[in-house]
């Protein structure tokens, strides 16, 4: 690779070069990129870098997780709440392969990560050396970019490129594999940030004609509807989106990863689309005359059957990634570019409007959903505790200001449906990959990136046990995260499907659980278990009031189901309320 021709570097003061070793160069690059926290786990092939981390411990804080998967998810949580690049580090072989789930999760959820893995000495590559694995080969399909460094002299340029690629355009994970001899080798160190790669166009130029055409369609639409996704958050376009929906009076729904970009309480926020989203936006997707998709990718969990998805509507797709255009849903108008700039260009072209009778249709359907589902979820009269009422208590105690980190399954859907969000970047969850075990480590990263925020992890009893070892990290690092396990002694979402589609054959979904309170206490984390409704409010209050980490187990009804629901492969308008 001839980097001098293919990448652009920041023009600045010419630095003097310094003769240092590769491992020190890695740390100096991280510091130059503003990294002050990283997550990882040491091992043979990355030891020279850890030795430098020790020397630079005043400037860069390494968090020892209990498993490399935890490190990857913690880096994700860090990135999702802060918009900064999360950094994870691991040794070769199993260390590197353990990062893969987190990397795949970051790839599908567009999370900027730089993962650094150690590798065996370059002469040993391909010899089946101890802890050698082809991590570049393994990670290729799940990284935005990856590269193996075998010479110390390549380190500054490759890491500069890694950070630039991870955070620019549609963000994503980058993996840099560095052989041990490159870590030991010396180089003349000088760091210049990367500002461009010739084969890579991070943000397509906005075509003003498409913006005009979009505005015309919006101005003439009778029943327009917006569905926004994480692209609004990644593009820092929350204010622009708010201005657009308010000016044109357009009801706006969100995908799971778009949650919190507009406050829950906003009158034009009509809720979540998708399999367990709200009744109105799903149902009315098939009645709107114009569907405006902003920074979202028409995931199958959002669209249900594509053959019957919004066929009556014209579609405008605002999107940064050209590969998403017409991938799943045909767009009559595609506005390529960064959401912030596109929406800012759109705003002045829009007529002031309010689609009152159209908005009323959403309100009417909400009333039905409230009566048939929501009321029973958040203010139940039956004996058993519901997940929804726990979320309601958390909303009350946090006043909607918490960042909610959810795992995957029923509790995730409940958390996304019922959390009140006042601030953007408040819903951190594994949307695309659906990675159980995500929440506990991601909450660690989120709390460390934003210590001023209340971070509440909502986890099921299944997912909790997939990365329960990270309680050790919480204890050692004194991370004051609040952990809520909604325990129904089942892999609830799978059980729900077994009940609905497999005649209640509960194959391997029932869980005999340990005493979670004792486990948390074993890590010296304050812990409480709630089994009765009358204990719930005080317990949540105590948890939120706690200055330290706190574990709360809530034993909820074992066989509750999450509704509404669009059965897999059905149309969004066939959404079921029971």
């Amino acid at each position: 690779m001839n980097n001098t021709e293919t990448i652009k570097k920041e023009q600045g003061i010419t630095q003097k070069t310094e003769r240092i070793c590769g491992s020190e160069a890695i740390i100096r690059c991280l510091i130059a990129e503003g990294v002050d926290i990283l997550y990882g786990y040491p091992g043979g092939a990355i030891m020279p870098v850890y030795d430098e981390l020790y020397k630079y411990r005043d400037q860069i804080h390494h968090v020892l997780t209990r498993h490399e998967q935890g490190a990857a998810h913690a880096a994700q949580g860090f990135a999702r709440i802060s918009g900064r690049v999360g950094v994870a580090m691991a040794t070769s072989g199993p260390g590197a392969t353990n990062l893969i789930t987190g990397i795949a999760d970051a790839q599908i959820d567009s999370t900027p990560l730089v993962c650094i893995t150690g590798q065996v000495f370059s002469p040993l590559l391909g010899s089946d050396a101890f802890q050698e694995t082809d991590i570049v080969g393994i990670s290729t399909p799940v990284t935005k970019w990856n590269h193996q460094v075998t010479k110390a002299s390549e380190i500054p340029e490759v890491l500069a490129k890694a950070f630039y690629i991870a955070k620019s355009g549609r963000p994503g994970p980058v993996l840099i594999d560095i052989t041990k001899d490159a870590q030991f080798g010396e180089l003349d160190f000088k760091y210049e940030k990367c500002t461009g790669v010739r084969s890579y166009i991070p943000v397509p130029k906005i075509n003003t004609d498409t913006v005009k055409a979009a505005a015309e369609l919006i101005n003439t639409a009778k029943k327009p509807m917006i569905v926004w996704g994480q692209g609004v958050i990644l593009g820092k376009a929350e204010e622009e989106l708010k201005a657009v929906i308010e000016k044109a009076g357009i009801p706006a729904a969100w995908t799971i990863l778009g949650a919190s970009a507009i406050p829950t309480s906003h009158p034009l926020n009509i809720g979540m689309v998708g399999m367990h989203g709200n009744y109105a936006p799903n149902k009315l997707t098939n009645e709107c005359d114009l569907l405006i998709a902003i920074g979202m990718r028409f995931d199958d969990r959002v669209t249900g059957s594509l053959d019957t998805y919004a066929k009556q509507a014209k579609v405008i797709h605002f999107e940064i990634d050209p590969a998403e255009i017409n991938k799943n849903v045909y767009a009559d108008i595609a506005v390529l570019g960064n959401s912030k700039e596109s929406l800012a260009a759109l705003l002045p072209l829009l007529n002031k409007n309010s689609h009152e009778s159209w908005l009323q249709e959403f309100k009417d359907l909400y009333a039905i959903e409230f009566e048939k589902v929501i009321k029973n979820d958040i203010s139940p009269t039956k004996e058993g505790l519901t997940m929804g009422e726990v979320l309601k208590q958390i909303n009350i105690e946090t006043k909607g200001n918490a960042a909610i980190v959810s795992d995957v399954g029923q509790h995730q859907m409940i958390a996304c449906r019922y959390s009140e969000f006042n601030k953007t970047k408040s819903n951190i969850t594994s949307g695309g990959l659906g990675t159980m075990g995500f929440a506990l480590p991601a909450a660690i990263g989120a709390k460390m990136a934003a210590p001023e925020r209340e971070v509440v992890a909502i986890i099921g009893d299944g997912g909790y046990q997939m990365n329960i070892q990270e309680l050790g990290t919480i204890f050692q690092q004194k991370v004051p995260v609040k952990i809520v396990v909604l325990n129904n002694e089942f892999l609830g979402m799978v059980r729900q499907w077994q009940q609905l589609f497999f005649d209640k054959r509960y194959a391997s979904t029932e869980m005999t659980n340990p005493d979670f309170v004792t486990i948390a206490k074993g890590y010296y984390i304050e812990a409480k278990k709630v089994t009765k409704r009358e204990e719930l409010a005080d317990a949540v209050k105590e948890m939120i009031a706690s200055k330290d980490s706190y574990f709360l187990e809530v034993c909820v009804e074992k066989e509750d189901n999450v509704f509404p629901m669009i059965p897999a492969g059905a149309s969004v308008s066939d959404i079921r309320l029971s």
Partner: protein
Amino acid sequence: MNKEIKTFTISIYTENNIGLLNRISAIFQRRHINIESLTTSQSEIEGVNRFVIVVNITEVQAKKIIGQFEKQVEVIRAYYHTEEETIYQESGMFKIKSDLLFEEPQIQNIIKESNARIVTVNKEFFVLEKSGRRNEIESLRRDLNVFGIMQFVRSGRIAVTKEEMKITEMLLAFNNQ
């Protein structure tokens, strides 16, 4: 858009980096698309590689995978073309026993008529090379097979397009930024 399965020639201009073939082939593999042929070489631009890949897919699929190629950081541009939009060739090599040249006089006629080129001749064997369309090479193979072929190999398709490729301008634009 057309949902009929057709033969498309995909051209991908890339940086010359290790691992890129893996990244590109994974895009086919993930979508269960069989690669009929694949050739990679230096392109008309110094330092830029060109992949020429032949696949049988629908045009809808072709458009989508072009998006996936261009999304790769080290891919400069990708294109798809139909048979009518390209000029393409393959090359085949035949290793045959030299004795046959004298024992089977027909072989000399076959060589002449097929416009095949003799690359080398020695006491034991001679090597023929034939460039052209797949059916021409196949036809020659069938004709020679009667007499016995010691070794046969055929290259993947190489192709140039009738339309202009705007890669050079794109790269110049980057350099002048």
